[in-house]
Structure formats: structure tokens, C-alpha cells
């Protein structure tokens, strides 16, 4: 029976929508599918350090229940039987939600985040929790309390971050949807590093309730998967106004027409961007042009300040969001008879170096005497960036540039140089600052066989239009279909 089922399983690189059709046609049971996916998580997923917890028992039970529903002819969810994972900073009823931090070691949220509830209601099956940088702060997944995550295309390299675990899983193997979060590129950059498709929705489109906050005005939950269509199906499920998140809204697309005119962001191809990355994305442009997509050059001069602006705002909000981990209510406590001492020792030992650095920076930029020079100025720059992006989007349907200025780097290569790590974000933070949607797709592999990604930014609410464009690209180019050799279990 097991052999029969295994022989009829989908290909390792199959998309979720292909798997949906596969299950629908009865080629395999959900139980067989989930069972094999759990096997992938336990072997490759754990070897890469990408998955922290695997929920075998509950997932198999749910798979059986799903099979029973299918047999009984009941109405099935749009993601019926599809495995999904949640990033370690997204609350789930089972398991722990520690944001990959020693501060929250063993923390059980006890409730599902709204996004997890929605995935479950759509029939998807929670199979595990993916690793990430501590409190989602990082671009290399080297700051996770659960250890480094490895890039499935070259295991000596980083998968990007902070949703590195989710991206490594999505790059290594198909079938599933992975929920990540993106504050300054944390979905898109690892997606680009691991050759997965990932999207950061319009800020407010997807409920943040149940997401452990980092920079609330920038944070957004989104899907990572094999292709744009998977992301589209997932986004349909995830989106919508949530009474438990006052900033969540229902959005509609600015137009029903497909994207035909793209702005080529000059600053996305300038100094600091590796030549190999530029060339690959330029080649992609030619392919799209041949299909009749029109390109125009646009200049976003304020983008030069985007990363500085981002570092100020994100750390400011983080310094406040992480204040609740004080050793009194939630989080690691080192006992002391002195309150100050309790706070400082608990927080010093619970938080890792990068998180402490950002809390200190964020506290500084909000401090009396400095707030105008740092936080205040960053707010004005943010406003300028937003206006610049929106005015550029008046003339074009989407904007295009690479995701990362360079290819996946070696584990340990940048870890001692925070500024070199912050440079990973220069092309991704713009979308977060402006609150606009952005989709990252595999573009090509470079000379060394490492993935190169590119991204499109759209108007607020144009998430599905961007995904449509991404689907068009994925029809024209099949880079996304590759699966790494080591990724097959």
C-alpha cells in the first residue's frame, strides 16, 4: 500500500495547485502525501535546519480526516490537503512560537494566528514550524536560536532571512505553502536566495494578529511557495479584514487589466549591485519585452536613503514591541530582588546580539534630543519614498528591480559585520516603507549555479495583478521549476 501510494505521489517540485489536482484525481491520498512531506521535513528539512518543529501526529490525523471528507463528497477547501508551515514568529495552537529566540524558549501561544486559522479553514494542514532569524531580525538566518539554516542550492551558504527556513523548504521541495513575514525583505530576499516565489502583500491586506511584532508599520505576513499561482491561491485565503487587527483592510486591485507597462528602477541597477545580478535581471527584461511588455526607465532618487530610513523606523518600533519581554510577564526571567537588575539581566541573557543591537539603536533614535534628528527625519523620508513610488506608479503598472544586490553568501561571511548584513536589504525595504505589494520570483541561476531573484512592486492593492505578471514570467521562463539535487529526499 505504501509503495503503491508512493509511486503515485506528485513530483518533488510540484506546485500546490498541481498537488490539488493530483489529490482531486485520486492519484494519491492526502495521508500518503502528508506522510511523504513529513518525511521530507524530518530528513532534508532538519538537515538544512529549516524546520524546527514537525507536527507529525496532528498532521496525519488531519490528513485522514481530509481523506474522509473527500470520500464523503463533502465540500472541500481551496487548499484541501495541502501541507503548510508557519514561521517561528507566527502563533500556532500546537507547538512553540519562540520567534527563534532564547527569550521565548518553550513559549506556547495556545492560539492560532488569524492566518493559520484561515489556512486551516481552507483545508490546508499545518505540518511544522520553520526557523527564522531571531525575532525576524536578519538577512541570513544565522541569528536563530535553533542554529543556522542552510541554502538547499549550496549548503555552505545562507538561505537569506529572516524567513530563511520557509524559503529553504520552498526552494528544496514543492507541494507546500510556507507562511513567512516580511518587514524589510524577509520573505523576498530568502525566496530569491533559495529560488522560491515569495510575496509581501500590501500592508494591511493580511492580518498581523498572531504575528510576533518586529516593526509593526512594516511587518506583513505573506506566502512562500513554488510559483506565483500557489502564492495567488494562498493570498486569496490569507487576505481580508480581521476584526482582531484594526489595521487590516480588504483591498481591491486598481485595475482588472493585466500589467503591460513596467518601470525599470534605475537605482536598482546601480552602485553596490553585483554585475551578475544586473545581467540576469536585464536578460529577464528582454524576455518580457519579447512578449510585448513595455519598459520605461524610472528614477527613485530617495531610494538611496531607504535603508537608513528603514533601519531607524524598524528599530524604533522594535525597541517598543520587544519591551514586553521583560522577564515579568512573558519571556525568560533571571530572578533578582532588584527590579532594574531583573530587567537587565533577563533581557541581556534572553536576547541575542543582533536583537540587542537593534533595541539599543531603536531606543536611541526615539530618545529625547535625538528623536527629531533620527526618527522624525526617517518619517519624512518615508513619506517622500512613498510619494515617489506612487507617483512613478501613476505612469506604469509595476516597478522592477533585483531582490538582493548579491548572490547567497557563505555562512559566517557577513555575520560579524552588521553593516554588510544590512546591505542585503537595500532593494527590499522600499516596498515595506511605502506599504506597497511586492513579489519576488526566481530569475535565473548565476555562473556558480546560485539562484538570482527579481521583484516587482505595484500599487497598493495590486497584489494579484503582480502575481499575474509573475505567472506570465513563469510561463516564459522555467527557472522556478528547478529543484536542487540535495533537496530530494
Amino acid at each position, binding site marked *: 500500500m505504501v509503495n503503491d501510494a508512493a509511486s503515485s505521489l506528485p513530483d518533488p517540485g510540484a506546485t500546490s495547485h498541481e498537488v490539488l489536482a493530483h489529490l482531486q484525481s485520486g492519484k494519491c491520498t492526502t495521508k500518503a502525501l502528508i506522510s511523504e512531506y513529513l518525511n521530507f521535513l524530518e530528513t532534508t528539512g532538519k538537515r538544512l535546519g529549516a524546520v524546527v518543529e514537525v507536527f507529525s501526529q496532528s498532521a496525519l490525523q488531519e490528513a485522514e480526516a481530509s481523506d474522509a471528507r473527500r470520500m464523503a463528497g463533502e465540500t472541500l477547501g481551496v487548499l484541501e490537503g495541502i501541507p503548510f508551515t508557519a514561521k517561528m514568529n507566527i*502563533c500556532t495552537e500546537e507547538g512553540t512560537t519562540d520567534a527563534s529566540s532564547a527569550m521565548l524558549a518553550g513559549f506556547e501561544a495556545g492560539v492560532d494566528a488569524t492566518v493559520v486559522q484561515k489556512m486551516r479553514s481552507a483545508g490546508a494542514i499545518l505540518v511544522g514550524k520553520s526557523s527564522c532569524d531571531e525575532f525576524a531580525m536578519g538577512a541570513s538566518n544565522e541569528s536563530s536560536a535553533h542554529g543556522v539554516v542552510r541554502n538547499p542550492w549550496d549548503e555552505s551558504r545562507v538561505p537569506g532571512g529572516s524567513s530563511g527556513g520557509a524559503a529553504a523548504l520552498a526552494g528544496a521541495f514543492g507541494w507546500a505553502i510556507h507562511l513567512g513575514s516580511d518587514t524589510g525583505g524577509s520573505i523576498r530576499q530568502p525566496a530569491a536566495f533559495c529560488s522560491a516565489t515569495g510575496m509581501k502583500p500590501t500592508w494591511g491586506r493580511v492580518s498581523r494578529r498572531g504575528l510576533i*511584532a518586529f516593526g509593526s508599520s512594516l511587518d506583513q505576513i505573506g506566502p512562500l511557495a513554488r510559483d506565483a499561482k500557489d502564492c495567488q491561491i494562498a493570498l486569496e485565503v490569507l487576505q481580508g479584514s480581521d476584526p*482582531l487587527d*484594526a489595521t487590516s483592510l480588504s483591498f481591491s486591485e486598481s485595475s482588472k487589466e493585466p500589467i503591460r507597462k513596467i518601470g525599470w528602477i534605475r537605482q536598482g541597477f546601480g552602485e553596490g549591485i553585483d554585475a551578475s545580478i544586473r545581467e540576469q535581471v536585464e536578460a529577464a527584461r528582454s524576455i518580457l519585452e519579447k512578449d510585448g511588455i513595455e519598459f520605461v526607465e524610472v528614477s527613485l532618487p530617495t531610494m538611496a536613503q531607504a535603508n537608513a530610513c528603514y533601519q531607524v523606523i524598524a528599530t524604533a518600533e522594535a*525597541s*517598543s514591541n520587544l*519591551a514586553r519581554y521583560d522577564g515579568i510577564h512573558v519571556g525568560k526571567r533571571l530572578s533578582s530582588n532588584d527590579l532594574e537588575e531583573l530587567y537587565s539581566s533577563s533581557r541581556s541573557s534572553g536576547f541575542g546580539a543582533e536583537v540587542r543591537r537593534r533595541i539599543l539603536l531603536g531606543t536611541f533614535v*526615539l530618545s529625547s534630543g535625538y528623536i527629531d534628528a533620527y526618527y522624525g527625519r526617517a518619517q519624512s523620508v518615508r513619506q517622500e519614498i512613498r510619494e515617489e513610488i506612487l507617483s512613478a506608479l501613476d505612469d506604469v503598472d509595476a516597478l522592477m528591480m533585483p531582490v538582493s544586490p548579491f548572490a547567497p553568501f557563505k555562512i559566517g561571511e557577513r555575520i560579524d559585520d552588521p553593516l554588510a548584513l544590512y546591505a542585503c536589504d537595500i532593494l527590499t525595504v522600499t516596498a515595506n516603507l511605502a506599504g506597497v505589494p511586492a513579489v519576488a520570483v526566481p530569475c535565473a541561476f548565476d555562473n556558480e549555479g546560485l539562484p538570482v531573484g527579481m521583484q516587482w512592486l505595484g500599487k497598493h492593492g495590486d497584489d494579484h495583478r503582480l502575481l499575474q505578471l509573475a505567472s506570465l514570467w513563469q510561463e516564459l521562463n522555467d527557472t522556478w521549476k528547478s529543484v536542487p539535487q540535495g533537496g530530494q529526499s
Partner: protein
Amino acid sequence: MSWNTVVGLEIHAQMATQSKMFCACRRQAGAVPNSNICPVCVGWPGALPVLQGEAVRCAIRAAICLGCDIQELSRFDRKNYFYPDLPKGYQISQFYHPYALGGSIPFTRDDGSAAVLPLVRIHMEEDAGKSSHEEDGTSRIDLNRCSSPLLEIVSEPLLMSGTEAASCVRSVRALLRWVGVCDGDMEKGNLRCDVNVSVMPEEAVEFGTRAELKNLNSFVSIERSVVVETARQIEVIEGGGQVVQETRLWDQDKEVTASMRGKEDSPDYRYFPEPDLPVVWITEDDIQQQSGSLPEMPEDRRQRWLKEYDFPEREVVPLLSRRENGDYLESLILEGVKPASASNWFRGEILKQLNEREERIEVFPVTAQSLALVIKAVEEDRISVATGKELLQKSLDKGSDLKTLLESTDEQVQDEGALGEWVDQVLSENEDAVNKIRGGDDRAIGFLVGQVMKLSKGQAHPKKVQELMRARI
């Protein structure tokens, strides 16, 4: 040198809402510690605040009755500080863009003139929890109060004494209670007040350096602390020193203020816009809806009562201190009681009972309907005033229904035949007294009437008895 005192107020009023400000938890005083809490109000990772409409409506009512300029657009900010009863590590407040600007508080100046204290602003914010420190050194934290809605009312520093400050706080309390925004019990902490005090030479134009006084939990502390602090500051200056800007704590027992922290030690709250909450829109419609549902305001009621009921001014003032009291009084009148006796009964009996029972009229067990029956019986001479009061007392003591008690009470005997028999009997048994009266000493008539009342077991109508008696003597 002659000195002037300059006083400004910062009043914190807990809004009397059913639920908290950013979650649907019950806002309830005196509940079992940590029983009215949820992920949102305890800052559980992943939980987000959602502004409850009830708190905003309540805040709008406060702003209307203080005559503020309500802002169409306002927003929340985070006030960051660490404290064990603040589980998020920040308080959600309105720092940069409060929802109401301006406005004023009517009050009485020390010279007796009516005045208004201009307000700078009112903003909404959430309350923190409560810490209690045990003698053995342990501390306990109750998070029930976390995220309860508060209003902070900030005045210009334009008062001249502690009595004026107390008068203002009384006035705010009366207004907020009137419109149901705040219960206004200082001793329970649902109305709290900080006072800024500075002194300046009489002829000076620039304010002196101010000290902020905290821990004022009664009107007496407000009055006294200003007096004491004024004296302290004058002494400092006259002794050649300088007043420093600082926060001082009032010690009610010792009647002194003591430095809590200087300006340089004051916490840096690092205010920034709360990213988890959208801006607050208050439309003209929202304001109309609230002002339309506001009760008649005290001044309007005063005017109307003076005109409609012909109450003397001195009677009206105490009746206006709480809206519910006046509502009860008016119910008596609506039930057919004459305004004058409604006022007499209310000021005499009801207020006395409420005081003794330490109870509010809202929970007073005797309804206006049944009390009106008793008062009308008195008005119509069917029972005596004394009997009426006894019935009320009995109903309260035994918890029995006043209407039933009234129905089972014998009415006063007014029939001249029956009264005549009692009068004749008393007159014949008290010849001495009768002779005294005949001799011109009228004092004995009271004694004789009393004897009839005794004989009739209180049933006789005293006025009629007296009339009959005089006719016979």
C-alpha cells in the same frame, strides 16, 4: 514681598464604560485579581489592540460637556516605560494629536465670583495594572485595570489657590458624573489629579518654576498641598534659593511635599505613533449623536426648575450635584407629588437615607413611584408626615414593599364624631391642663393633642384634634 500662587491641573478620569479600551474585557472594579484579562490587555505576543467604540463615544461626551474643540482626526501614540504593572512595556496614549483641544471648566473663585478655567487639551489613554507590595518583600500584580479607558484633562495654569483647584476638580467631577463619563470617586481612584504649583511676585509677568504634585487623592489633599507647597516655594525663594522643576509627592499625614524626582531624572517616554491603530476619525455625525443623547445639563436644569417649580435657589444647588438625584426628584413630581414636597422629602429624607446607607440613588431600594404614593397620602392628609417617614424607614429596614406597607396602614381618622369622643375623654381626664389653657397658658394644648394621639394610637388627625379641642375649651 507679596506672592501669587499659580496652579494648573492634570486630571485623570477613568471612563465608566462596560468594556476596556482596546479589547472587549469587562472593566470592573473589585473583581478577583487577573480575572478580567485577555491576550490583548496583557500584551500577549501577537495580540493587537482594537479601539472600542464605547470608549470613544464616552470621550466625545466628556469633550462636549467641557466645551472642547473635538478634532476630526486624532491618533494614538506609544508612551514607553518599564514597570511590572505595564505588561506591554508601553502605554497607548495620545501625545502628538489628542482628540480634543481647548474647552473650560466652570468654577468659583475664592472671592465668590464665577469663573472658567481654560483647558489645553483632553486625550484618551489606557490605564496600567496595579502593583501591590507585601511586607515580606514580594510584589503582586493585578492586570484587571490594564487597558481600562482613561481621559487626561490638562488645564492652563490659571488658578490662584488650592481652594480654587479643589473647586475646579469638584466641578469637573460633577460634570463628568452628570453625563455618565466617570464615576468620580477619588478615594477609589477613578478620578485622580496632579497639580502644578508655582509662585511669582505679585507684580511679575513671568511664571515661576513649577513643581508637579502627585498622590492627591481627596479634595482636602488638593487644597492643603497647594497651600503647603506655596509656602515652601516662597520660603525657598526668600531664603535666597531657587525653586527647581520637579515632581513632588504629597504626604497627607505629615502635611508636607517631598521631592520624588527632578527634571533630569524624569523618564524619557520616547513617544511615537502607535503603528497598530489607524487614525481616529470623529465625524460631525458622531458628535451630533452624542450631544443629542446627552442629558439635560445642570445649568439648564437649574433654570428650568427655578421657573417651573419655583424652587428657592438655595434648594436647587444641592439637588444639582448628581443628575440621578434630580432624575429621582423629577420622577416624584411626574407621579403627582407637589414640587415643594418632593424637594422637602428628597433633601430631608432621601439624602439622609443615602448618606446613612452609603448608597447611590440608582440602587436605592424604594422606587420613586411607591414613595410618591406615600408623599401624596401625606399631602392629602390621609396619613401624617410622621407615619409617612415611619413607613419609609420600615420599608428600608425590612426590605418590604412600600406600597404594600402603605395599603395596610390605617388612614388618619378625620371623622369629627370619632375624634370628638377621644377629645372629650382626654379633656375630662385632664382638667388641670384644661384650666391652664382657660387661664391663658396655651402651652398645654400640645400636651392634650399628644394625649389624643396616644389614645388613638396615632390615627387621629392632629390638626383637626386641635381645632375640636379649642372649640370645646
